[in-house]
């Protein structure tokens, strides 16, 4: 599905570089990369999403070099890829329901399907009672759950998660882990980067360590 082939990234501030990283994410796999601050975790996710260019090496999406993709192919890839950041990315002027249904609207689904899927996702993340609430009044945990619900309705082929549990409680982390397994079950390829403290809780996951930009098996 996704393959990092000797990827090297040099940031201008010298922080979070990647050195000859090679990593293969087979379809439907769950890979967890752990590393301390500045190890290059965010760079790994950004390169995977095509948000950052490699200085050398290449990123292959289904054996196609992402740097060779035209705009149409790249945005098709992005549409099929869910990206979770440390800080939830939501549209403030929309309410909870509107935020969750947005990806489906953009994909051009029918209203009935959108309503059904959005309601299911709202129930899954436990925010059914908040569906008409504005985003502004919600806490970080609730915002993150909205992001997870967005991922669920999208049914992405690839999930790139950049330590989304960073600010979350232990209960939220358990919910997040359950969410990852749910996506894995429907065939989503998952790459999660995080710090090392909670990695022991993952089962059936390929775990790698990133140390000063180098991937240690």
């Amino acid at each position: 599905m996704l393959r990092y082939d000797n990827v090297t990234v040099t940031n201008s501030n010298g922080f979070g570089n990647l050195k000859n990283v090679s990593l293969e994410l087979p379809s439907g796999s769950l890979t967890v990369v752990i590393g301390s601050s500045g190890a290059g975790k965010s760079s790994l996710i950004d390169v995977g999403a095509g948000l950052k260019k490699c200085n050398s090496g290449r990123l292959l999406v289904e054996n196609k070099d992402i740097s060779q993709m035209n705009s149409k192919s790249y945005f098709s890839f992005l549409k099929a890829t869910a990206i979770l950041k440390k800080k939830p990315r939501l549209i403030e002027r929309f309410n909870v329901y509107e935020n969750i249904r947005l990806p489906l609207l953009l994909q051009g689904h029918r209203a009935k399907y959108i309503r059904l899927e959005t309601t299911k996702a709202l129930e899954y993340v436990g925010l059914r009672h908040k569906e008409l609430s504005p985003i502004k009044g919600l806490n970080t945990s609730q915002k993150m759950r909205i992001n997870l619900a967005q991922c669920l309705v999208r049914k992405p082929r690839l999930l790139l998660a950049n330590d989304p549990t960073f600010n979350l409680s232990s209960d939220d982390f358990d919910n997040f882990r359950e969410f990852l397994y749910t996506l894995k079950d429907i065939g989503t390829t998952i790459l999660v980067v995080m710090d090392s403290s909670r990695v022991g809780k993952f089962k059936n996951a390929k775990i790698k360590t990133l140390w000063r930009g180098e991937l240690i098996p």
Partner: protein
Amino acid sequence: MAELNQDKNTFRSHKNPSGNLGYCWSTFLHLLRVNWGFSILGPTFMIYCSLPFLLILAAFLYSDHIKEHQRPEITVFLAEKVSPDKAALLAKMAAAVSVTYQITIIEPKTAAKKVAKTLNLSADLQEAIKFPRTIQIIFPNDADPLVLEELAQLLAADSRVTGVYSTIETHKLLQRTRCHWVLILSIGLCFTGVISLLFGYFLITIIGRPHISEMSTMFLLGVPSLESSRPLQILGLVFGAVYLLGCLVVYPALVRGMTISVDWFFYFHRLNEPKLDLPSMKILISLAFMVVMYLVGVLFAIRKIHVSIMKSASENE
């Protein structure tokens, strides 16, 4: 959640984003609502900034119009004893010296009638006025001013002539000022163009900046920057159209005001009702230039916003 897991049919159904249209228009209306102050003041300010240029343009076209319609002329006032035959002889002599457009011998009564009509004088006063016999010689626009000046001197030296009035100097002045007008007009056009460009750039940047986070979220959902910034592009086009329409509405009013003022200033009375023709090609081209410059500013702003979207999309905090 078991239902979701089983729903694999839609796993790869990433349809064409026709849903972007709904987002685009709702966001456009949202931007209009949130930035209602900018939406009103922006185009108004741009029209206000263009007023000096429009005024210069109107003055230039008006001076061109005057030059075209006001041919150089010499008015010769004859002595009282000069008979109509001698007046005609003098007119023939003038026609022999230079090419003329029209020669009219104005009888004293006709002259008094004209003046009385123009100045709204009563019949008694009209009777009281005694005008000399007059020859009005009108020349073509391209007549040589040197020849006309010599002719005026020649006529002034004639014993049958009591006075000579000519518009040759005015005509020469109009010709001389034309190059100055063109220079002022070019500077005004460039200046207004630069202002339009800067204004387009800053207006869209100011409106777009608080919206960047939303556009970067859309980017992460697979919407290209060009599509997520479409509401801003439409907003830029709408402001441009309002700007153009505003200038087209303001211009005739400026022309009207200016022609009335000029007529009063030079003649102390209104000669003719100024004509409000459709904007000429020169005006349309000038306005199109200003709007194009404004749109270039909008394009620069959109381009900068696209860079900011990418930057914001890759931010992690």
